[in-house]
């Protein structure tokens, strides 16, 4: 059975999305993309250092990947909209991860501003992927505003704590018809598998890959964990029971 993820009509063959920040080199990042088979990768937009040599990250990203710029650095909707328009003008395409973060301590997103930016950018033809706190009412507002998916955080960015927001993410998965993509906080492949077993449509990881001892190898492990979690979700994961239950028959002993 074809189980491809479809976002805004685009078929995506790998449910593991990779962020490109914090890698020791672009070459290493490229190898991690290849080893994981990721088809959606995020990038950020920054001022060019006009005093020193300049390398182009885009040439390290395989051609088959969708490049999704993020609006990191934006503290409100207007800044996110401005960054999104610049990213598109720079030839990055229509995919945009809206990230509005007014808070430097916890790096938690501002849902209200994210909704405002989504409304504007969706009308301009962007494929809008908002990074948000998992809140059902806000997810409905984003859905109405034209978001292409909802990307709730598993835990604060870069914390590697896993799917701490599990119960709230589960509600989004049950109630929202858009793909739910768990973004941020995923620290290990088992966390990624957990998110997928819950029914997430995809998982986005950056820090846990880029800062691992062997980013190329762990990227592969994440990708496999996402696949396993997805298959488990489709198969139907059994529920825990209070009492023991034998796996082998209790009748017909030799004695």
């Amino acid at each position: 059975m074809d189980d491809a993820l479809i976002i805004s009509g685009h078929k995506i063959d790998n449910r593991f999305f990779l962020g490109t920040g914090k890698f020791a080199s672009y070459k290493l990042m490229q190898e991690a993309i290849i080893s994981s088979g990721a088809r959606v990768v995020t990038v950020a937009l920054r001022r060019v250092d006009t005093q020193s040599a300049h390398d182009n990250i885009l040439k390290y990203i395989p051609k088959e990947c969708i490049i999704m710029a993020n609006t990191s650095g934006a503290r409100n909707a207007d800044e996110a909209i401005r960054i999104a328009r610049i990213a598109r003008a720079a030839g990055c395409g229509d995919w945009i991860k809206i990230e509005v973060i007014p808070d430097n301590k916890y790096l938690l997103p501002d849902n209200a501003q994210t909704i405002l930016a989504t409304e504007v950018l969706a009308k301009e033809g962007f494929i809008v992927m908002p990074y948000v706190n998992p809140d059902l009412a806000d997810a409905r507002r984003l859905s109405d505003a034209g978001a292409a998916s909802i990307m709730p955080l598993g835990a604060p960015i870069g914390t590697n704590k896993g799917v701490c927001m599990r119960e709230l993410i589960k509600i989004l998965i049950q109630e929202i018809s858009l793909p739910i993509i768990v973004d941020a906080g995923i620290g290990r492949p088992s966390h990624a598998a957990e998110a997928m077993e819950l029914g997430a449509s995809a998982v986005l990881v950056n820090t846990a890959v880029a800062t691992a001892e062997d980013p190329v190898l762990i990227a592969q492990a994440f990708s496999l964990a996402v696949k396993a979690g997805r298959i488990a979700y489709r198969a139907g994961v059994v529920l825990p029971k209070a009492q023991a239950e034998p796996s082998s028959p209790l009748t017909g002993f030799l004695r």
Partner: protein
Amino acid sequence: MKARINGEDLDFASSVSIAEFIIQRKLPPETVVVEYNGAILTRDKWEAARLKENDVLEVLSFVGGG
């Protein structure tokens, strides 16, 4: 002449076009995007646009990010 480039005031001996500025700084034109006084300036307009006193120029490119 003074213009603000990426948040820094730079002095220019004479007026330069955006295209000349990009070349002078050895920036690969195909990988940078320019915002000129708050509006995106597409590459085909770099030649005609000349830096003037108090202009604000943002020269941006993609970097790694999550």
